[in-house]
């Protein structure tokens, strides 16, 4: 049999730790259907300025740099930013979405915003508010999905 903590997806309080009442209140409000108000609140905070912040410096530094291979050259693979063909001896920076760029081309872009110029795959940022906004959006998707599956299980 699973434990109380497993079933409720939480962990016991550590010694001396006090329950986080604000967190519980927030969860109560979300579960009680106040989530849509909260969504609006987030929209108000962020919609005026949809522009995402720059990518995290650390994440950009750690992106893999790979040498241009003869295969890339024979396929005329281009850097999507400067539109020049990659040449032997150059290195390409590889994004997690598998798109390749010259470092000198992608770096100025990632200093402005956090997404791949080809597919908008988002890199983490150093902006805590934006990260919270992204988590909030992900939770909303999850909530909608759960509601949908609950609905389907009852009426589907």
């Amino acid at each position, binding site marked *: 049999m699973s434990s109380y903590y497993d079933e409720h997806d939480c962990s016991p309080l550590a010694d001396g730790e006090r329950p986080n009442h604000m967190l519980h209140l927030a969860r109560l409000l979300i579960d009680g259907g106040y989530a849509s108000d909260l969504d609006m609140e987030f929209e108000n905070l962020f919609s005026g300025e949809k522009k995402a912040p720059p990518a995290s410096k650390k994440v950009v530094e750690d992106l893999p740099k790979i040498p241009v291979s003869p295969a890339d050259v024979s396929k005329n693979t281009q850097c*999507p*930013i*400067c*539109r020049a063909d990659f040449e032997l001896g150059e290195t390409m920076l590889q994004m997690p979405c598998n798109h390749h760029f010259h470092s000198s*081309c992608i770096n100025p872009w990632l200093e*402005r915003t956090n997404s791949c*110029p080809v597919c908008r795959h988002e890199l983490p940022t150093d902006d805590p508010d934006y990260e919270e906004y992204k988590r909030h959006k992900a939770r909303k998707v999850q909530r909608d999905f759960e509601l949908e599956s609950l609905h389907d299980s009852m009426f589907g």
Partner: protein
Amino acid sequence: MANIAVARIKREFKEVVKSEEVAKCHIKVELVDDSFTSLRGEILGPPDTPYEGGTFILDIRIPETYPFNPPKVQFLTKIWHPNISSVTGAICLDILKDQWAAAMTLRTVLLSLQALLAAPEPDDPQDAVVARQYKETSDIFSQTARHWASNYASAPHREPVMDDKVAQLKNMGFDEHKARVALSTHNWDIEQAMENILS
């Protein structure tokens, strides 16, 4: 101008010229001078829209920071569309603002504008008057847009009733374009349009 902007526009130019859309005369880009910062675009009005068969000319300015910032684009051909100003030709399109990405090109911008002609977004308008007409009286909107396209973009389908009304006001001595704007704005009610011009 920074080298990357000019170098890229030159490469893009070749790409657009070779593209199949150009071969089918759907889009076109030309240099205005030899600086590669000022370009002239052309899109064909898409089929099954009021703009069908019209040729729409665009002014394209390449910023020094291109392709990290979008090109500045506006319509030189007068057009009746919810997301394009009927006065200045300014365009409201997300990819020309905050949704721009450095991998987009002149070709994708022109194709997006063509798509915008086929699918207006009245809830994010540039021209509030046109957007309201589009939502409230879509028949009048379509006819008005077709009338503008035939008069300003050489589109083949005319709207004879509207042409007549503009001619009537013109014969009274009113400026043709002013008459067209007033009639378009007042759902082609001649009296209201005249009042509007005279007020």
